[in-house]
C-alpha cells in the first residue's frame, strides 16, 4: 500500500500508543497495529523520523540500557497537537473519497 502523505500521522499515532520506543520497535508496532497492511520498506521510516524530529513533533536520545546503543523516540507536546490536526485532515479526506467512490470505500 502506498503510504506517501500518511506516514507522518501513522508514526505519530503509533508513538502515542506505544510510548517512547526505538525505531525497530516502532516499525514492528506499526506493522502489527495495521494487521500487516502497512508493510513498507522499513528503512524509509528513519528519514521520516529525522524529519519529524527536525519539525519538533518528536524528540530522540541515545539509550544505553540495551545491549546495543539505540535511539529512542518520543512524542512531544507539539507532536500530540499535530496528531489532532492531521486526524481531522484524514477524516475530511476519507469522507471525500467515500463520496466520490459511491460508498464502496
Amino acid at each position, binding site marked *: 500500500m502506498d503510504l506517501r502523505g500518511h506516514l507522518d500521522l501513522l508514526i505519530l499515532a503509533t508513538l502515542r500508543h506505544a510510548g517512547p520506543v*526505538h*525505531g*525497530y520497535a516502532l*516499525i514492528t508496532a506499526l506493522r502489527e497495529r495495521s494487521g500487516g497492511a502497512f508493510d513498507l*520498506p*522499513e*528503512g*524509509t521510516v*528513519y*528519514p*521520516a523520523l*529525522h*524529519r519529524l524530529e*527536525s519539525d*519538533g513533533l518528536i524528540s530522540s536520545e541515545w539509550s544505553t540500557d540495551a545491549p*546495543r*546503543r*539505540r*535511539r529512542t523516540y518520543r512524542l512531544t507536546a507539539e507532536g500530540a497537537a499535530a496528531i489532532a490536526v492531521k486526524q481531522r485532515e484524514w477524516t475530511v479526506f476519507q469522507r471525500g473519497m467515500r463520496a466520490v467512490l459511491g460508498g464502496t470505500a
Partner: protein
Amino acid sequence: MSTEQHVEQHVERYLDDLFDRLGGQGAAGRRMLDEAGDHLRSSAAELVAAGLPQAEAERRAVAAFGESGRIAGLLREVHRGTRRAAAASTGLAIAGWALVMLAGAHLFASLALSMWGTSVPIMRQTATTGAVQLLVAVVVLCGRFAAVKVGWLPSATSVHTTTAAAVAALLGVALLVDLPLAAAQLWDMTGLWRLAAALTTLFAIVNVLVVAVANRAARRTSAAQATARA
C-alpha cells in the same frame, strides 16, 4: 570461511553500501548508519528466534529494510533544509561578530588618536565608522537571536565561528581601511590617516591572535574535562 562469517556479510555488506551512499551527510548519516545496524541485527535476531537459519534471517532483514540508495536519498532530502539553515545561522553569527570586532578596531583607533590629541575630524570620522559598524552588528546579531528563538534557525555554531569572525574582521580592515589608504597615497594624504589605519590594523591583528589563543585554550579545557569525566 565459516558459515557464521559468511552469514554476517549480508548485514555487513549492506551497511558498507549504505555507508558509501550516506557520504557527505555528516552526523545525520552516521546516526542513520547506527540505527540501520541496530535495526537489521534486531530484525535478523527475531527471525532466527522464529526458526529461520541465520543466513536466511539476515537476507530477509536486509530485503525488508529497503534499497540503500533510496534511504540515503530520502535522508539527504530531509536534511538539505537543515544544512541550509545551519549555514545561514553560522554565516550570520560570523558576520555579526566580525562587525563587532571591526567596530572595536575603529573605536580603539579613535580612542588612541583622541588621547594623543591629534586631528579631531579624523578621530571623529573613525569613531563614527566604528559606531555605525557596531549598530549594524547589533541588528545582525539581534536578528539572528530572534530567528533562533522562533525556531527559524538552529542555535548551534561551530567553535571556529569566532576565529572566522576575527579573520573576516582583519580582511575587512584590509579592504575598507588599508586598501583605500594605499590608493590615497597617490594623492599624498595626511600622515594621520596612515596612523589611524595602522592602529585599526594593529587591533585587528591582535584580535585574531587573542581569539585563536582563547579558542585553543577553551578546546584544551573541554578535552581535559572530557578525559576527567571518562
